[in-house]
C-alpha cells in the first residue's frame, strides 16, 4: 500500500467531490458506496483480485471473439456451402465449387490481379509522395508548430470517401479544372479523357489513403534523434549519405506499417472505383459486391471471393512485413 497521496490525485478527487456535494454533505459516490445494495454487489463481485480480473477479462474476450472474429469465421463457413441461407427442407452441403468458380473465368481473375497490382503500385506511389512531406514535418518544422502543420493536412481527411471522390471527379472531368487549365495554357485543343480510367482511380485512391502513410512515417521520423544525423555530418557524410545510411534505414518501421495499412485499405475501396472507373478498370471489390446485389444464393460465391481477396492481401502484407523486419535487422548489425 502506498502511503503517499500525490497532490494531483488529491486535487482531482477534491474537485470532483466538490462538484458532487449534495445537501446532506455526502457526495453521490459516497452515498452509492455506502448503500447496502452496492455493498452487496461489491462483496459478491469485487471482493477478490481473482474475481475482479475474471470480470474484467470476460466481456472483452466474448466481444472480440463474437464481434471481431465471428463475422470473418462465418464468412469463411459460408464460402464452403452450396447455398446460403438454406431453403427450408433442404440439407446444408459443403462444396469447393465457390472457389473453383474463381479460377474458371478470366472475368474474375483479371479484376483480382488488377486490384493487387493497383494496390501495390499505389502504395509505392503514396510512399514516394508522402515521405518528403513527413520528413519536412518531423525535421524542419518547429516542434510547437508541428501540430498545426499536421492538422492542416488532417482536416480534409476526416471528410468521407464519397465527398472526396466527388472532388476528384470535378478536378479531372472533361470540363474539369485540369482540362480547363490545359486548354487555357494552349497545351491541348480537346479535353484529355482522364475520367473512367486507371489514372483517375489512382489519383482518387492516393488522395484517399495518403494520410495512412503520412502518419506512421511522421511518427517514425519524429522519433529519430537529430544527433544521429548531426554526428554523421561531423564525420563528413554529405546529405545523400546521411539519408541513405541513417534516415531511411531508421524509418523502415514507419514505411513498413504505413505501406501495410495503405495496401490493405486500397484493396477494399468500393465507391471510388465505381465512381471514377470504367468497364476496363473493374476491381475485385466490384466483383465481390456483384454477388451481394443479386439474390441470396450467390452469397457463398461472394464469400469465397472475399476470403480469397483477404487471405491474399494479408499474405502479401505479411511477406512484406517479414522483408522489412529482415532489412531492419540488417541495419542494426
Amino acid at each position, binding site marked *: *500500500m*502506498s*502511503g503517499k*497521496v*500525490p497532490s*494531483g*490525485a488529491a486535487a*482531482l*478527487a477534491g474537485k*470532483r467531490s466538490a462538484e458532487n456535494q449534495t445537501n446532506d454533505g455526502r457526495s453521490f*459516490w459516497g452515498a452509492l*458506496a455506502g448503500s447496502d445494495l452496492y455493498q452487496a454487489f461489491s462483496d459478491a463481485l*469485487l471482493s477478490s483480485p481473482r474475481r475482479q*480480473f475474471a470480470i*474484467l477479462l470476460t466481456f*472483452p474476450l466474448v*466481444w*472480440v*471473439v463474437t464481434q*471481431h472474429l465471428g*463475422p*470473418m469465421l*462465418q*464468412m469463411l463457413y459460408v464460402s464452403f456451402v452450396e447455398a446460403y441461407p438454406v431453403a427450408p427442407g433442404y440439407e446444408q452441403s459443403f462444396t469447393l465449387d465457390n472457389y473453383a468458380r474463381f479460377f474458371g473465368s478470366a472475368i474474375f481473375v483479371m479484376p483480382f490481379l488488377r486490384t493487387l497490382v493497383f494496390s501495390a503500385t499505389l502504395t509505392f506511389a503514396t510512399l514516394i509522395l508522402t515521405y*518528403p512531406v513527413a520528413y*519536412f514535418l518531423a*525535421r*524542419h518544422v518547429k516542434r510547437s508548430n508541428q501540430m498545426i502543420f499536421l*492538422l492542416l*493536412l488532417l*482536416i*480534409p481527411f*476526416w*471528410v468521407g470517401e*464519397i*465527398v*472526396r471522390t*466527388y*472532388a*476528384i*471527379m*470535378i478536378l479531372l*472531368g472533361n*470540363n*474539369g479544372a485540369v482540362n480547363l487549365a490545359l486548354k487555357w495554357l494552349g497545351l491541348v485543343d480537346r479535353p484529355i479523357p482522364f475520367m473512367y480510367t486507371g489514372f483517375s482511380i489512382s489519383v482518387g485512391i492516393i*488522395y484517399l489513403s*495518403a494520410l495512412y502513410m503520412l502518419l506512421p512515417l511522421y511518427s517514425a521520423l519524429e522519433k529519430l534523434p537529430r544527433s544521429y544525423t548531426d554526428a554523421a555530418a561531423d564525420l563528413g557524410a554529405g*546529405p545523400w549519405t546521411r539519408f541513405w545510411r541513417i534516415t531511411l534505414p531508421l524509418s523502415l518501421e514507419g514505411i513498413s506499417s504505413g505501406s501495410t495499412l495503405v495496401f*490493405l485499405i486500397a*484493396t*477494399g*475501396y*468500393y*465507391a471510388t472505383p465505381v*465512381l471514377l472507373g470504367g468497364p476496363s478498370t473493374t476491381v475485385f471489390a466490384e466483383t*465481390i459486391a456483384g454477388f451481394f446485389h443479386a439474390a441470396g444464393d450467390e452469397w457463398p460465391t*461472394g464469400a469465397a471471393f*472475399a476470403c480469397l481477396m*483477404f487471405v491474399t*492481401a494479408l499474405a502479401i502484407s505479411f511477406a512484406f512485413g517479414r522483408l522489412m523486419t529482415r532489412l531492419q535487422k540488417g541495419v542494426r548489425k
Partner: protein
Amino acid sequence: MTRHTRLVMSMIYWAFVLYIFVPLALMVMMGFKDSKFIGFPIRSWTLEWYIGVFGNSEVMSAFGYSMVIGITSTLISLFVGVWIAVLLNGRGFVGKGVIYGLTLLPALIPGIISAISFRIYAQLWGVPPGTGAIIWCHAVHNVPFVVLIVSARLGTLPKSYLDAARDLGADPLIAFMRVTLPYLRPALIGGSVFCMLISFDDFVRSFFLGGYQPTLPVLIFAKLRSGMSPEINAIATVVLVLTALLGIWAERTTRRLKKGY
C-alpha cells in the same frame, strides 16, 4: 541540412497541401455556379443551391439518420473500447497478445470485406438490413480506434492515483469511475469525435447493410449515379464544413484538457 534542401522540402509540403485542398476548394466553388451543368468556367454565381440544401427534406432526413447512427454506434464503441483498453493496460496474462491482435482486427479488414462479412453475420443472427445492422457494424469497426486512443492516455495515468483512491477505501469500480474515467476525459472526447466522423462519413458499410432509408453518404452516392449537379456540391460542402468544425473543436478541446491535468 542545407538551406537548399530545406527550401525544396517546404515546397513539396506546400504542393502536397495544395493537392489535398484544391479538389475540395473547386468542389465548394462549383456549388455556387448558376447553372445545372457541372464544369468550368463558372460565369455567374448563385446561393440558390446552398439555400436549397436546407429546404430539402430528403437531405435533412438523411442527415438526421446519419447523426442517429453515428451517436449510437459511438456510445457502444466507447463503452467496449474503454473496457478493452483497461484490460490491455493492466497486468499481463496468457493470451494478452492474442486479444490485442483480435482487438485491432476490424481496423485492418478492407472496407468491402468488412461490409459483406457483416451482411452475412447479421443474417446469421436474424438482424435485417437497416438501422440496427448499420449501428452494429459501425460500432465494431470503431472499437480498435477507441482502444488505441484511450490506451495512449491510460498509459500516462500515474499508478499512485489509483493507489491513493484504494487507500481511501474505494473499490476498483469506484476508483475507476472517480479517478480513471475523469482522467481519460480528453481521450474520450477525442475518441468519440473520431468515431462520429468515421461513422458519419462511412459509405461502404452503410451501403451494404442499409435498408430503404439512406444515410447521407449513401444518398450522395445515389444522386451521383444519376448525374453530377451543383446540388450535390452544396450538400458535400455542408458535410465538409461540419466535419472540419467538429474535428478542429475536438482537437482544441483535447489539447486544452491534456494541459489542464
